[in-house]
């Protein structure tokens, strides 16, 4: 089986990679590019731990074939902070203790960032429904929801 060459922009860098036609975007990010921030929790699109932003849309990267990413702009958790400066969501997750084990955190952050780009002033219900595709087994979601709402408030004020 011959490998495919795929040209992408990942976290602002132009990245070309070779992949098997059956490999997912998550496989490539983790196993070929060393971007292990996206996690595989289920491989079936149910847990959201592998969430990345693909051309402005959040996707489960375990459900995207790597070859489909040709020409795409991809944002992963590794690109969320601006150098050493954390994104407000990242800061608020730490401040609110919105993570315990932290395995779901990258997916929640990527999904939350996409929410706030569309809706800078979400209600609690809107936050809860937007994040319903991301499973967290540790926190009961309370502190995650609070962190997102607080980050939104801070970003609106600045």
């Amino acid at each position, binding site marked *: 089986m011959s490998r495919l060459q795929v040209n992408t922009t990942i976290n602002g860098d132009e990245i070309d990679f070779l992949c098997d036609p059956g490999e997912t975007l998550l496989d490539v990010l983790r196993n070929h590019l060393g971007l292990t921030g996206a996690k595989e929790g289920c491989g079936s699109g149910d847990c959201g731990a592998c969430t990345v932003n693909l051309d402005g849309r959040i996707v489960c990267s375990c459900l995207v074939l790597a070859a489909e990413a040709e020409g795409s702009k991809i944002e992963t958790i590794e690109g969320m902070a601006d150098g050493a400066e954390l994104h407000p969501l990242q800061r608020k997750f730490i401040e609110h*203790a919105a993570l315990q084990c932290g395995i779901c955190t990258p997916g929640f952050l990527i999904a939350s960032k996409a929410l706030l780009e569309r809706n800078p002033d979400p209600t609690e219900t809107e936050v809860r429904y937007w994040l319903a595709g991301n499973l967290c087994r540790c926190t009961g979601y309370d502190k995650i929801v609070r962190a997102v709402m607080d980050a939104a408030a801070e970003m609106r004020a600045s």
Partner: protein
Amino acid sequence: MAEINRLTKDSGFKVVGTRPPRPDGIDKVTGKAKFGADMFAPGMLVGKILRSPHPHAKIRSIDASRAEALHGVKAVVTAADFAEKVPRSHQATLHNIMAHGKALYEGHAVAAVAAIDNATAKKALSLIEVDYEPLPFVIDVEDAIAEDAPLVHEGMITRGMDPKPEKPSNIESACEFGHGDLDAGFAAADIVLEREFRTEASHQGYIEPHACLANYSDDGNSELWCCTQGHFLVRDTTAPLLGIPVSKLRVTASEIGGGFGGKTVIYLEPVALALSRKSGRPVKMVMTRDEVFRATGPTSSSYMNVKIGITKDGRITAADALLFYQSGCYGGFIAQLGAMSAFACYGLDAVRSRGREVVTNRPMQASYRAPGAPIINFAVESLLDELAREINMDPIEFRLKNAAREGDRSSYGPVYDQIGMVRTLETARDHPHYSSPVPAGQGRGVAAGFWFNFGGLTAISLNVNSDGTVTVSVGRPDIGGSRAAMCQMAAEELGIPYENVRCIIADTSSLGFNDTTDGSRTTFANGLAIIEAARAAIKNMCGRAAKMWGIPEDAVAWEDGCAKPSGPNAGDFDPMPISEIARKAPNTGGPIAGHYEVNADGAGVSFGVHIADVSVDAETGRTTVHRYTVVQDAGKAVHPSYVEGQYQGGAVQGIGWALNEGYFYGKDGKMENPGFLDYRMPVASDLPMIEAAIIEIPNKGHPYGVRGVGETSIVPPLATIGNAIRSATGVRMTEVPMSPPALLAQLDGFKQAAE
């Protein structure tokens, strides 16, 4: 309970009780943190496991020759590649990681391959030919205890039964706890209720599947990297399974993506190491979610009978419970913990609880957060709710009337020391949630719960660095932010800023044996060892200052991170800060450190009371939780945000178990919902905020009064939700999960009333 009194501080804390950022926070929000599957090694192979498609089958033969011949396959292992004899305590693990002659459940490992990539490994699995002889199987607990049930283990005689049964059965072991005269107690009752209850198995549901990377070395430097709740346990189990000395295996714990008891069991590590030994290359193994569901966890399903008698004024006169816990294919200890915890919230004169571990053709059972307790708690607290209704008594007042108090003999034996059951109930009663009116269309439920908490084997090392900062090495994986609490306790004792302490999880070659991160033990047991290690370092540093000042060692005291002259003969010297003592250490005796090793007892039991407001949709049977409050004793909350997090997380796991989660088996004995779509755990939109009220009744077994907080919170939710549903609908659910179809089937009367 414990005579021990270590309590040295219960007020005036400077760092303990604050909410600093966790030390691993930035790594976790930037994707840098390395979890089980995030490690790679040069020349690494991919390991995969072939699993039994049958719930019960004799393995007549395994022919791996075609797989071995496949290009890119570097090793195949079966049961023959592991030690023939292991200590009895490791027998079940040996037979579980690789079936020995018989597959005991669908998903039981039969063989494993290591190949150059995932696709090749998968193809190799399909080329292994296993000749199975399917056997009759049993899945449910009541079927397993039936007279004519197929036996999971031929010839197994129940342990712990007196007299010893002559006939083999699926009841692996039996236990009994209690005291007093039950007959007299029931005779003295005005009202006696007896009910049967059933619960389905639930999975721990950690988002990170099991993963490890093994690198075997013949010269004695074998390495394992894995996500586990206890890397010392991994080492001490894996080494004998491969027939190598413990010293020749070093295990490093990765960051761990949830465990909840499910990562106290060893599945992949010995297999990966055996594949590495055979192939001569590093081998990485990662389970799929399907494998996690079919072959790991879950906790017990159950069938229980509970009988309780009360007087008209609400005093319990006798309580009796019989628990049959479905314990997977090997039995275990979960029914025992269930029986012990059954009535532990109450001070009773006549009480008995009997547990039975029942084996079935399901995966080897694993602990799940307060293992065994939520199951029997559902039965007991549901029945108590009915009894309170019988006499029109407020459920919290009813429980207060019967609450366990200091000096009471617990239902499982020991006499209680300073405990918080009464204050927990009073706090719940006085909570704004409980005093608020129940909104129209909703019902309110309350339930109490108990967990023992554990301590155990602990070894800590604390090093004072050359600039006066401190590194603490602990031996238990940090599963939910515990490193912050470790740093806080070290900083508190040493009188230095939180930021000046770093806590690392040391590998198994760097510290003495540490029990696993479970039993709510980490902050309690690590904490007391850290404080003792800090005290040893302080004593050492006072000695250094005394030496420099030329005064007696006992004329130096430690205060706010400084050595200070103290007492009449001390002389007049400026306080010497830890940074100066550390800098001068090369000239005063060398490096400064403290360490402490202990089998920590005195963990301190804890109680929780939960309050829920729910509504039930009469059309669909769906229950919505509108408001939920957790009240729990933490002894001393070291980092209150993470204590609240434990309360909230445990409550939500319990809500999921109560309302949705459960295993579905087909008539063929195979699990039908092995994925997160069909094994549906709570998502954010299912839930309200979870209010968390922390009570602090110091535990005398810890210098700062800390109790474990991780497990109690999953104990009350099943009954809390059931009692709220009863209030909302008039329907008493006696089976978990109380899923929409299950509830709908009971709701006819409610529906008519609603119309």
